[in-house]
C-alpha cells in the first residue's frame, strides 16, 4: 500500500532527520489526553505518546487520525478484523481456580492484559463465567492453610484485574458478594510480605454509614455502598499502585454513581421534606441535626463536581426546602467544627453562584430583614475560632464584592468590574441607576458595619496591647479592605473617605505583632500600586510613611521579612516614579531618608525627587511618571492586570539596566545608565527583530524564546509567525533553545504503570508540576480561560494571601524578561492574558518520556535532556 496514512515527526534541528514514522492503524487505541497529548500503542506493543506544545497542533493531528480511522472502518476488513477480535474473545478461558493453578491463572491474566483485545475478551469471560465468585473462596482457604505464597498470588491476581482497567470488572469487584473477598486478597501484598492490612474489617463495619433519613430505594442504597468501597479502594487499598488510567476509571465510576444518587435524592420530595424537617423548631434531637448538616455538606461537596445545570437544580431545590435555615443553625452552633461545616455549605453556594446569593442578600435588605451579610459580619467580629474566622472573612468578601461576575462562566471575579463596565451601555436606564445606587448604598452600609472595629481604633490609646483575637480580626479586616480597593477602587472610595480608614490602617503599622504590621503594609503597597490620585492622597495623609520609615529604621540593617517588604515598597516607588509619593517623601522625610544608607534605595529616591522638582525634568521622566490627569477609572482597571507582580517590574528594570555589561550598578549608582540608553537599546533590538523578519533569516520552525508584547499587535503576531531568533538583550540570554513544538517519545512498559512514568518524569524533565501553559498567545483563548478560571478554587485561594491566586492567574502578564519594553511605557497594560493551567487544569500534565532513561540510569542521567533527544524528541510543526 503506497498511500497508507502515516504520522511523520521530523527533527527541528535537522530537518532531514526523521524521528518517527508510524502507520495509523485501525485500532481504537488512539487517545487524546488533555489538550496536547495523543497516545497509542504500536503494533509492537510499545506505548507511544506525541506531546504537543500547542493544543491546536494537537487538534489538527488528532483530527487527521480520526479521519483516517473512520475511513479504515468503512473499508472491508483486512488483517486483524473485529471478527478476529471476537474470535479471540470467545476463545479466552481460564481453568477453574484452585490453589494449585494460581500461578497459571496469574500468568494468563497478565498475558491477556497486554492487549486491548485480550482485556476485553478476558472481561467478557470473567463476567460470563462469574469467575470471581469461584476465585474468592480461595482467599479463606489459603488463609486457613496459612499459605502466604498463595495469598500473595491471589493479591497479584486482584491487582492485575483492577489494573486491567475495565469498568465492568471494577464495578463487579465492589458488589456485595465479592468485595470482601477482593480486599481480603489485597490484604496480603507481596510488596509488604510482613504486613497484613485489615481492609475487610474496615469495609464490613456497617456503622460507618450514617443514614440520616432512610433511603428507600434499594438500588440507590447499593450505589452508596459501592461508591464508598470505590473510594476506599482508590484511597487506601490501591493508593500506592494506581496508574493514571485506573485512577481515572475509579474517579469516573465514583462520579457517575454520585450523580445518580444526588439526582435521585433531589427528585425525592418526601425525602427532602423529612430531611429539612429535622431542623424544625420542635425537633430536640441535636445529634440528628448535626448529622443532617454533615449530610448536606457532603451533598454540597458532590454538587461542586456536577455540571452547572445539575448543580443549580440541586442547590435551588435545597434552598427552596430551607437550606438557609440550616446554615443559620450551623454557623451559630457552639461547636467550632459545626460552624466550619455550616460555612462550608455557604461557601459552596457562593462558589456556585455569587450573584444568586447577593440577590438573596439584597432582597433581605429590601424587605427590611436582617441580611445574611450582617449576620456574618457580627459573627466575624465575635468569632473566636481562627479557622472559622478565616472562612467567615472569605464569605463576607465574596458577598460584598460589589460588582459580581455574572453566573455566566465567562465572568471572572477579578475582571468583573472591568468587563461589566465594558458591556454596560453608556447610559443606564433609570431602573439600572436605581439598582446601582442601591448596590452602592448597601455596599457602603455593610462596609461601615464591617470595618467598624477598624474605625474604633481612632480612640485606642495603645497599639501595644493587642490580643491574639484582635490581631486576627484586624488582619482579616485589612485584608478585605485591601481586596476591595484593589478590585473596586472607585466603589470603595466613599467609605474609605467617610470612615477615614487609611490612618487607622497606618496605626496598625505600630502594633508589636509583625504579621499584622505586614498586612497593614500590604494595604499601603496596594494603594500605591493603584497609581490613583485619590489613594495616593490617602496614603500620604494617613501618615503611613512615618510608621513605615520607622519600621525600616528599627529593622535595619537586619535582614528580615519586614525589612525586605519595606525595601520592596520603596524600590517600587522609585522604579515606577510614583510622583506624588516621591514628592511627599522628599518634602517630609528628607532628613530621614538621607540617613538610611545601608541600601542605596533611599538615596536614589531622593535623587529622583531632585529630578522631579528641578525646573526642567528630563523628558524621559515624563514617560515614567504617573500622569495625574489620567482618569483613575482606567488606572483601576489597569491595576488589576499587574497587581502581585511589582517586584518583577522592579527587578526586570534592574536587569535591563545592568545586564548588558558586567559592571555592578551599585558601584556606580543607579543612574549610571540613563533611561534613554535603555530605551534606545530597546528600539535597536526592535528594529533588529523587524529586519530579521523581513529577511526571513530565521528558521521557520523555531520559536522565539520570549514573546514580545509590543505596542503593535500585528507585529507581535508577525514575530511569532516568523519566529525570529530572539534578539538578546544580554549576550547571556541570547541563546536560542528552540523548544520543540512537539515531542515523540517512545514509552516502554517497563514499569507497572504509566502513572509512574508521569511521576518519575515529574522531576526529570517535564514535570507534572508543569501547571502553567505559557506563551499561548491567542487572544481568543482568553475568554475560555477566564471562564475556566472562574470555576477554579478561588475561595480557598483567596484566603489570606493578598495576592489572590485566581487574580494573579488571570492578570498574569506575559513572561518575558527580554520583553521589548520602551522605557517609560507601562507594558502593564498588556492585553495578553496567559492561560493558566494552575487553576484551570487540576490534573498533572502527562508528558511522554522514555522509561529506558530511568532503567539505564548508569549512563543516562534522567535529567539529561540529551537522552530524551536520542529517543526522539521530535517536533511537529502544526498549522
Amino acid at each position, binding site marked *: 500500500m503506497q498511500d497508507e496514512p502515516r504520522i511523520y515527526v521530523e527533527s527541528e534541528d535537522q530537518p532531514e532527520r526523521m524521528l518517527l514514522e508510524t502507520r495509523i492503524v485501525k485500532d481504537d487505541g488512539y487517545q487524546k489526553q488533555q489538550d496536547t497529548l495523543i497516545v497509542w500503542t504500536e503494533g509492537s506493543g510499545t506505548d507511544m505518546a506525541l506531546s504537543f506544545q500547542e493544543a491546536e497542533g494537537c487538534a489538527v493531528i488528532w483530527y487527521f487520525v480520526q479521519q483516517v480511522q473512520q475511513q479504515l472502518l468503512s473499508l472491508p476488513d483486512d488483517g486483524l478484523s473485529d471478527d478476529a477480535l471476537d474470535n479471540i474473545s470467545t476463545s479466552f478461558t481460564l481453568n477453574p481456580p484452585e490453589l494449585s493453578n494460581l500461578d497459571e491463572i496469574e500468568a494468563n491474566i497478565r498475558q491477556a492484559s497486554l492487549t486491548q483485545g485480550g482485556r476485553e475478551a478476558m472481561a467478557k469471560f470473567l463476567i460470563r463465567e462469574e469467575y470471581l465468585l469461584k476465585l474468592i473462596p480461595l482467599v479463606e482457604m489459603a488463609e486457613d492453610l496459612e499459605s502466604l505464597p498463595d495469598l500473595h498470588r491471589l493479591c497479584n491476581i486482584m491487582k492485575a484485574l483492577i489494573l486491567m482497567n475495565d469498568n465492568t470488572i471494577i464495578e463487579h469487584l465492589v458488589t456485595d458478594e465479592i468485595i470482601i473477598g477482593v480486599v481480603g486478597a489485597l490484604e496480603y501484598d507481596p510488596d509488604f510480605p510482613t504486613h497484613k492490612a485489615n481492609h475487610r474489617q474496615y469495609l464490613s463495619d456497617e456503622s*460507618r454509614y450514617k443514614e440520616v433519613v432512610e433511603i428507600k430505594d434499594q438500588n440507590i442504597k447499593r450505589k452508596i455502598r459501592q461508591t464508598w468501597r470505590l473510594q476506599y479502594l482508590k484511597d487506601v487499598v490501591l493508593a500506592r499502585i494506581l496508574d493514571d488510567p485506573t485512577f481515572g476509571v475509579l474517579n469516573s465510576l465514583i462520579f457517575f454513581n454520585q450523580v445518580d444518587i444526588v439526582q435521585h435524592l433531589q427528585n425525592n420530595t418526601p425525602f427532602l421534606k423529612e430531611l429539612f424537617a429535622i431542623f424544625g423548631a420542635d425537633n430536640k434531637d441535636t445529634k440528628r441535626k448535626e448529622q443532617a448538616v454533615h449530610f448536606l455538606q457532603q451533598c454540597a461537596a458532590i454538587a461542586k463536581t456536577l455540571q452547572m445545570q445539575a448543580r443549580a437544580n440541586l442547590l435551588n431545590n435545597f434552598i427552596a426546602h430551607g437550606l438557609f435555615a440550616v446554615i443559620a443553625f450551623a454557623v451559630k452552633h457552639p461547636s467550632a467544627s459545626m460552624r466550619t461545616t455550616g460555612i462550608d455549605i455557604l461557601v459552596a453556594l457562593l462558589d456556585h453562584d455569587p450573584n444568586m446569593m447577593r440577590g438573596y442578600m439584597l432582597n433581605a435588605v429590601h424587605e427590611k430583614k436582617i441580611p445574611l451579610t450582617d449576620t456574618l459580619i457580627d459573627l466575624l467580629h465575635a468569632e473566636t475560632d481562627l*479557622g472559622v474566622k478565616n472562612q467567615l472573612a472569605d464569605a463576607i468578601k465574596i458577598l460584598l464584592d460589589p460588582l459580581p461576575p455574572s453566573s455566566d462562566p465567562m465572568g471572572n471575579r477579578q475582571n468583573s468590574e472591568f468587563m461589566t463596565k465594558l458591556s454596560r451601555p453608556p447610559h443606564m436606564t433609570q431602573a439600572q441607576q436605581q439598582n446601582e445606587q442601591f448596590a452602592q448604598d448597601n455596599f457602603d452600609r455593610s462596609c461601615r458595619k464591617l470595618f467598624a472595629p477598624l474605625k474604633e481604633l481612632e480612640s485606642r490609646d495603645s497599639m501595644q496591647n493587642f490580643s491574639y483575637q484582635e490581631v486576627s480580626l484586624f488582619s482579616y479586616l485589612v485584608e478585605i479592605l485591601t481586596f476591595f480597593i484593589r478590585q473596586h477602587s472607585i466603589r470603595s472610595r466613599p467609605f474609605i473617605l467617610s470612615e477615614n480608614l487609611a490612618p487607622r490602617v497606618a496605626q496598625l503599622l505600630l502594633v508589636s505583632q509583625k504579621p499584622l504590621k505586614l498586612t497593614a503594609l500590604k494595604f499601603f503597597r496596594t494603594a500605591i500600586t493603584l497609581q490613583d490620585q485619590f489613594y495616593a492622597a490617602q496614603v500620604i495623609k494617613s501618615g503611613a510613611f512615618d510608621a513605615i520609615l520607622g519600621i525600616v529604621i528599627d529593622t535595619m540593617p537586619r535582614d528580615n521579612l519586614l525589612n525586605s517588604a519595606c525595601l*520592596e515598597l520603596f524600590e517600587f516607588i522609585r522604579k515606577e516614579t510614583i510622583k506624588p509619593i516621591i514628592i511627599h517623601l522628599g518634602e517630609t522625610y528628607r532628613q530621614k531618608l538621607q540617613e538610611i544608607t545601608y541600601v542605596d534605595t533611599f538615596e536614589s529616591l531622593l535623587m529622583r525627587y531632585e529630578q522631579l522638582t528641578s525646573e526642567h525634568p528630563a523628558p524621559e521622566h515624563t514617560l515614567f511618571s504617573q500622569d495625574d490627569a489620567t482618569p483613575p477609572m482606567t488606572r483601576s482597571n489597569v491595576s488589576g492586570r499587574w497587581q502581585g507582580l511589582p*517586584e518583577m517590574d522592579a527587578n526586570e528594570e534592574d536587569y535591563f539596566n545592568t545586564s548588558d555589561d558586567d559592571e555592578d550598578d551599585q558601584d556606580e549608582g543607579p543612574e549610571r545608565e540613563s533611561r534613554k540608553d535603555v530605551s534606545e537599546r530597546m528600539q535597536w533590538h526592535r528594529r533588529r527583530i523587524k529586519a530579521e523578519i523581513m529577511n526571513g533569516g530565521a528558521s521557520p520552525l523555531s520559536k522565539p524564546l520570549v514573546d514580545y508584547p509590543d505596542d503593535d499587535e500585528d507585529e507581535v503576531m508577525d514575530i511569532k509567525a516568523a519566529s525570529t531568533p530572539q534578539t538578546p538583550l544580554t549576550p547571556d540570554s541570547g541563546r536560542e533553545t528552540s523548544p520543540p513544538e512537539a515531542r515523540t517519545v517512545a514509552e516502554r512498559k517497563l514499569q507497572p504503570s504509566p502513572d509512574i512514568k508521569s511521576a518519575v518524569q515529574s522531576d526529570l524533565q517535564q514535570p507534572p508540576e508543569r501547571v502553567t501553559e505559557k506563551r499561548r498567545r491567542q487572544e481568543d483563548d482568553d475568554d475560555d480561560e477566564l471562564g475556566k478560571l472562574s470555576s477554579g478554587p478561588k475561595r*480557598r485561594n483567596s484566603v489570606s494571601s493578598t*495576592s489572590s491566586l485566581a487574580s494573579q*492567574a488571570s492578570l498574569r502578564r506575559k513572561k518575558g524578561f527580554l520583553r521589548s519594553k520602551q522605557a517609560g511605557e507601562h507594558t502593564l497594560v498588556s492585553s495578553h492574558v496567559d492561560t493558566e493551567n494552575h487553576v484551570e487544569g487540576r490534573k*498533572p500534565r502527562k508528558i511522554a518520556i522514555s522509561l529506558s532513561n530511568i532503567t539505564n540510569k548508569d549512563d543516562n*542521567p534522567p535529567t539529561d535532556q540529551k537522552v530524551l533527544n536520542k529517543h526522539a524528541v521530535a517536533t511537529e510543526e502544526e498549522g
Partner: protein
Amino acid sequence: MINVCCRAIAQLRACRPIPEPQVRELCYKAREILIEEGNVVSVHAPVTICGDIHGQFHDLMELFRVGGDVPDTNYLFMGDFVDRGFYSLESFLLLLCLKVRYPDRITLIRGNHESRQITTVYGFYDECIRKYGSANVWRYCCEVFDYLALGALVLGATTDVPPAASDNENTQSTLPPEDEEVESEVLNANGDILSKTLRRRFAGLSMMSHHTNSSRISPAPDVDVPSPPDHPASSLPLQSSPSSQSLFTPPTSTTGAVLCVHGGLSPLIETVDKIRLIDRKQEVPHEGAMCDLLWSDPDEIEGWGLSPRGAGFLFGADIVRHFNHNNDLSLVARAHQLVMEGYKEMFDKTIVTVWSAPNYCYRCGNVAAILELGEDGSNGGCIARANGDQGRREPVGTDGSEGGSGVLWNLASPGRRYRVFEAAPQGTRGMPAKKPVGEYFL
C-alpha cells in the same frame, strides 16, 4: 511552649497528627520565628543539606537516622515538604516543630510545592481535609508557607570533607594524605564509603573503593565551556585582572559560600542581595524573581532557556559560573528535580541537585541523598563574604556572554559528603496509604 513542643514532636515522630488547636499554635509560633529570617538565611557550616521530602514521612525519619538527629546535626531543608506522599501533614508539622524548638539548628526554605495553588492539586489540601475534616489546618500551613525564606547561604564550609558523623571528636580523624585531598565522597546509609573524588591533579582519577558507577561524581559534560582549572597551579589566562589575584591562592580551607535554593537562578537576580528586595510574604507568583528561584532548573544549554515546567527558566553552565563568581559562591545547591542517584553535580561541580525522597511516590525506585558540609575550623568557621556590592572582582571574561572565551576562576568548592539512602524499611512503616474517610452519608 517547649514542653508542648516536645510533646508535639514526640507525637509527630510517631506519625500521628497533632490536634488542630496545637497546629494553630505551632503555626503562629513558627511565623514569629520565620518573620525574623531574611529572604536568604545565613547558615554556618557544619550543616546537612536536604532536598525534596514530599510527604514521605517514614523516609524523613530514615533521613534523620542516616544523617543524625536534630539538634545533634544541623539541617537545611530546601523545600517541597508536602504533596505526593501520603504524610505531608506529619512531615511538614514535624519539621516545623523542630524549627520552633531548635530555630538555629534547622533551616527551612520554600519550595514550589509550598503554595496554595500547587497543594490543592497535588495532595496536601486533600490530606488536610481527610485528617481534620476541614481546610483549617491547610490554611494555617499555607500561611506559614508565605513566611518561609527563599534561600540560604552556607558560610564557612571547609574544603575538606567533613568528619564523619560517627566521629564525635571535632578533629578530622581520617585526614587524607597530603596530596590526596578528598573533594567529595559518597557514603551509603551505613556509613561505608562508596566512592571518592580527589582534588587537583588527582581529580581525573576518581578512586573508587567500591565498584560504583564512576559517572556519578564526574561532572556532567559541559557543552562548550572549557572547564576552569581546579587548582591554582594550573595556568591561567592572561586577561585575568590583578584584582582576582587573591583567587589564585585561596587558603586551602576557605571556600566560597554555598547558595541553597529550591529551584535555581533567575535572570532577574544577578546578586544574592537582590533577593533581599523581594517581599516574599505572598503566594508564589507565576513569574518574576521569586517564582524563578523556586521553579528554575539547570540544563545543558548556554544562557537562559524556556522551562518546560511553564514557570521559571532553564539555565546553563555559563550562567552558574558567572553567578557564582559574581557572588563569591563556590556552589549552588538546589533540589526540585528527581535524580535517581539522590544527587547530581553539574557544570563542573558548580551546582548540585540534592533529592531526599527515596522511591519517590512510593514507586520511582530512586535512592535519596543528603549533602554534608563541614565546618572550617581554621579561621573561626567564617569568611568575609561580599554579596556583590563590595570587594567584587570583575569577571575575567569581560562580556559575560562568551562563556567559552573568558574563564572564570571560581572559589574552591567545599568538601562534600553525600550520604545516600533508600526508602525506610517496611518494618518501620505500614503500607503507605491515605487515611480513609471515617464515616459517610452518601
